[in-house]
């Protein structure tokens, strides 16, 4: 069999991958393919393929996209809303087995207001919050956003990013794989 036939066959099989990681709305499993919205709504790939790529979630580095000016999302609707930015890092997980977490307020306040987290999710005092991965994986604490909208919880070392003194260095970016069987049938 000539090589070009094998290459063509593999190209065909891999076409969805080569076309980008975003499903068409009609094929995404939640939109009704018969809905009149299908040909009118913007396709994810049309918008997201132009932004800084990532390997998880929306496959977009949202903070980088914002900082580079690829997107310029509005920060308020009402003119009297105070836009609050805060630049301070907090070190978390000082005693756990994983590398420490350097939590950056700056990137979070680019998107969020202080009141989104304080004080109902986190007390505004270093060390005052008992954080737990079990709660986070269950959609609480950081898991309110991470694992739902902001980068997913499979990206361990994006948060656990700082070695303890004498401890293991965080691995660059090794996502854990969620086995295919764990995904519920649509």
């Amino acid at each position, binding site marked *: 069999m000539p090589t070009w036939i094998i*290459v063509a066959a593999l190209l065909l099989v891999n076409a969805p991958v080569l076309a980008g990681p975003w499903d068409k709305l009609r094929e995404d499993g939640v*939109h*009704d393919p018969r809905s009149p919205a299908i040909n009118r709504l913007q396709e994810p790939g049309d*918008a997201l393929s132009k932004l800084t790529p990532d390997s998880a979630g929306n496959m977009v580095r949202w903070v980088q996209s914002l900082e580079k000016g690829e997107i310029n999302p509005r920060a308020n609707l009402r003119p009297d*809303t105070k836009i609050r930015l805060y630049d301070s890092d907090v070190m978390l997980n000082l005693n756990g087995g994983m590398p420490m977490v350097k939590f950056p307020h700056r990137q979070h306040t680019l998107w969020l207001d202080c009141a989104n987290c304080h004080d109902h999710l986190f007390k505004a005092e270093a060390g005052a919050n008992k954080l737990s991965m079990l709660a986070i*994986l269950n959609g609480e604490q950081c898991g309110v956003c991470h694992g739902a909208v902001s980068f997913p919880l499979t990206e361990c070392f994006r948060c656990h990013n700082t070695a303890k003194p004498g401890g293991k260095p965080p691995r660059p970016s090794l996502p854990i794989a969620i086995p295919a069987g764990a995904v519920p049938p649509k």
Partner: protein
Amino acid sequence: MFGKSAVQRLLLVAMALATVFLVDIDEARAEYGDVVINNYSDAAGMRPAIFPHWFHRVRFRCKVCHADLGFKFKAGGNEINMVKIIDGQFCGACHNGELAWSVENCNLCHSGKPGTPTQVHESTVQKLAPAALQKK
């Protein structure tokens, strides 16, 4: 058949690997962060509403809706209904025909498959504990 050139052989191996590892990409999946809201839609004979986070965050920071407009971080937890939207609350703050399309474009938001449950699709909780999610 593998005797052509090193480049061809490398290409074949790379594509075969991609086939093996990425074959489940065909499976239908909502975009990460898509929220399906089906509190009242099915009962009202409408398709469930789909809120695409990716589309909105290109244009608005999270704080616009989650601080200024008071959306709770909970899929289906805001008790949104069309009366409130027409009154300018929640989605109606923008979807009023000025900033974004207005309420008479029912089908543009109500575009989900009938029977799709309220939840953040592709979320970690949905993947790791789908049964627990249904009990809630």
